[in-house]
């Protein structure tokens, strides 16, 4: 697998007194250019691609290119290798790829607003900055975004670092940034507005940070609701990928649902979601048939579920090499089906196939898209994580909470 390493020797600097985050340098490698951007063809269609990403080694990871601008100006930077993630909310960019000087947002006490983003195995720490985001023909003005890995705010509070290790480089992140366009409007929500919570938002001076409550509109926001139109959700459209995988897969994110000629609700199955974004998957193969905390997530690179017998052992053979631990490696392809049921009681059956992860990945080192990649979800006995393989050959609708389409009110997923 070809590895193309991008080197951007550019760190984040706080311009003292100005409250600006910047890397200060000029654009270097095509990832950073300062231009005047005027979309000639207003469009709600954003090109997205499954490819190897910054390292060339990513698998089933969906990337796009976005343009960030200093608010209210035409000073902009185009950034590629931004992951599209329906399992998170808001835009996060690695400081090392940012050449713009973006203003740091203020906490309610006037100090700098800095965020701790939690992941299952670690955290990302960095200031909230304000930017105008341009994707396709859409624009979210004065959008709060997170700049990860800033050299200006290096003292990480212990209740932030308590989730594990820092993910603050392109290498550890696997992308130049991540665009969270799932079904929620903010990355934390009312819980962070009602009280100061360790592990989320902090008010920072140059020497000390304290947890602080943040109004929902000042939190890092899903940009879609800020679009002028096309602001109630999105549709991810990816082509089918045959068993065995393929080199790359190109498709689109269509912004809005029932707002343009290209995003009408049709005969899709609408599964409404609970406050955590969950629906239920029913299986006939697993020892726990009802998986009540299931979700569809473009940021997961496989179909993650358990297929256990009554003794708790996996019916599908798991891989036995370190690189593929947690993935399934059956001797021959396994065909399964499950029923997905929304909180509204609406159900639909989905068929899927699991192939030997190691065999298909090793057979074609240049392949990055695999529709049959599966693995265990050992953390929870009640979860089916329908990752990117689910999206191949489907149009997956994500309707955002508190927003309405002709098919209903979000949060819902439809396909």
């Amino acid at each position, binding site marked *: 697998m070809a590895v193309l390493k991008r080197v951007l020797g550019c760190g984040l600097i706080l311009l003292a007194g100005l409250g600006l985050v910047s890397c200060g340098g000029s654009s270097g490698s095509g990832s950073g250019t300062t231009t005047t951007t005027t979309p000639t063809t207003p469009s709600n269609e954003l090109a997205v691609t499954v490819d190897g990403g910054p390292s060339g080694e990513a698998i089933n990871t969906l990337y796009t290119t976005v343009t960030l601008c200093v608010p209210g100006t035409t000073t902009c930077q185009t950034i590629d290798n931004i992951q599209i993630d329906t399992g998170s909310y808001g835009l996060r960019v690695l400081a090392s790829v940012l050449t713009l000087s973006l203003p740091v947002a203020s906490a309610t006490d006037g100090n700098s607003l800095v965020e701790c983003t939690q992941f299952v195995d670690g955290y990302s720490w960095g200031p909230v900055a304000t930017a105008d985001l341009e994707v396709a023909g859409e624009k979210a003005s004065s959008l709060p975004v997170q700049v990860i890995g800033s050299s200006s705010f290096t003292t990480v509070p212990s209740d932030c670092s308590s989730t594990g290790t820092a993910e603050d480089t392109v*290498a550890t992140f696997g992308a130049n940034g991540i665009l969270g366009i799932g079904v929620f409007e903010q990355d934390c929500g009312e*819980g962070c507005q009602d009280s100061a919570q360790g592990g989320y938002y902090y008010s920072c001076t140059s020497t000390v940070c304290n947890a602080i409550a943040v109004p929902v509109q000042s939190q890092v926001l899903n940009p879609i609701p800020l679009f002028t139109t096309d602001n109630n959700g999105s549709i991810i459209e990816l082509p089918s990928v045959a068993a065995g995988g393929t080199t790359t897969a190109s498709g689109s994110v269509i912004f809005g649902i029932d707002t343009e000629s290209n995003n009408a609700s049709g005969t899709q199955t609408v599964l409404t979601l609970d406050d955590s974004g969950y629906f239920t998957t029913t299986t006939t193969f697993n020892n726990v048939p009802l998986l009540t905390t299931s979700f569809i997530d473009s940021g997961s690179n496989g179909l993650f579920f358990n297929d256990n017998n009554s003794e708790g052992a996996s019916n599908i053979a798991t891989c036995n090499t370190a690189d593929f631990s947690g993935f399934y490696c059956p001797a021959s392809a396994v065909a399964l089906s499950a029923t997905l049921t929304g909180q509204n009681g609406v159900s639909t059956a989905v068929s899927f196939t699991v192939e030997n992860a190691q065999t298909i990945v090793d057979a074609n080192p240049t392949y990055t898209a695999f529709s049959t990649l599966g693995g265990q979800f050992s953390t929870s006995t009640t979860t089916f994580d329908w990752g990117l393989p689910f999206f191949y050959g489907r149009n997956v609708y994500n309707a955002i909470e508190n927003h309405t389409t002709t098919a209903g009110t979000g949060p819902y997923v439809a396909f």
Partner: protein
Amino acid sequence: MLRQPRIDLKHISLAVVMSAALLPQMASAALGGPETGVAADAQALKASVKSTDRTTYRVHSIQLASGTVLREYAVAGGTVFAVAWSGPSMPNLRQALGQYFDSYVSGAKARPGSRRHLEIRQSDLVVESGGHMRAFTGRAYLPQELPSGVSLDELH
């Protein structure tokens, strides 16, 4: 290369075990700590606790301010042998894992980055963590401290 768990079978270093054994018994209900620390922890966290007796152990459910529920499983009057969590926020793992936190961090560092799944398997510590923003689940347990007859399916 794959953003998925690498199950780490390396053994916890003897040095860590030794230093842990030499630590004084602190009033903390962290993994491996005494059950008596649960109430103190809940007070420090300003959280409410609900305790339930099971056949061979007790479950203390701590409702955290973030909305996340942290469950601590302990032999009555004995050791906390497992912790589990579910909710919109990750719990403070430094507090919940106690003396095992450093082992968890080094285990997590040894793996390629993953934002959805984490699995660390060592002879005396298992950590499983999963989910996505605003919806996390996970657990950590000490395989050698599990009371006999306890199924892992009960620890959620």
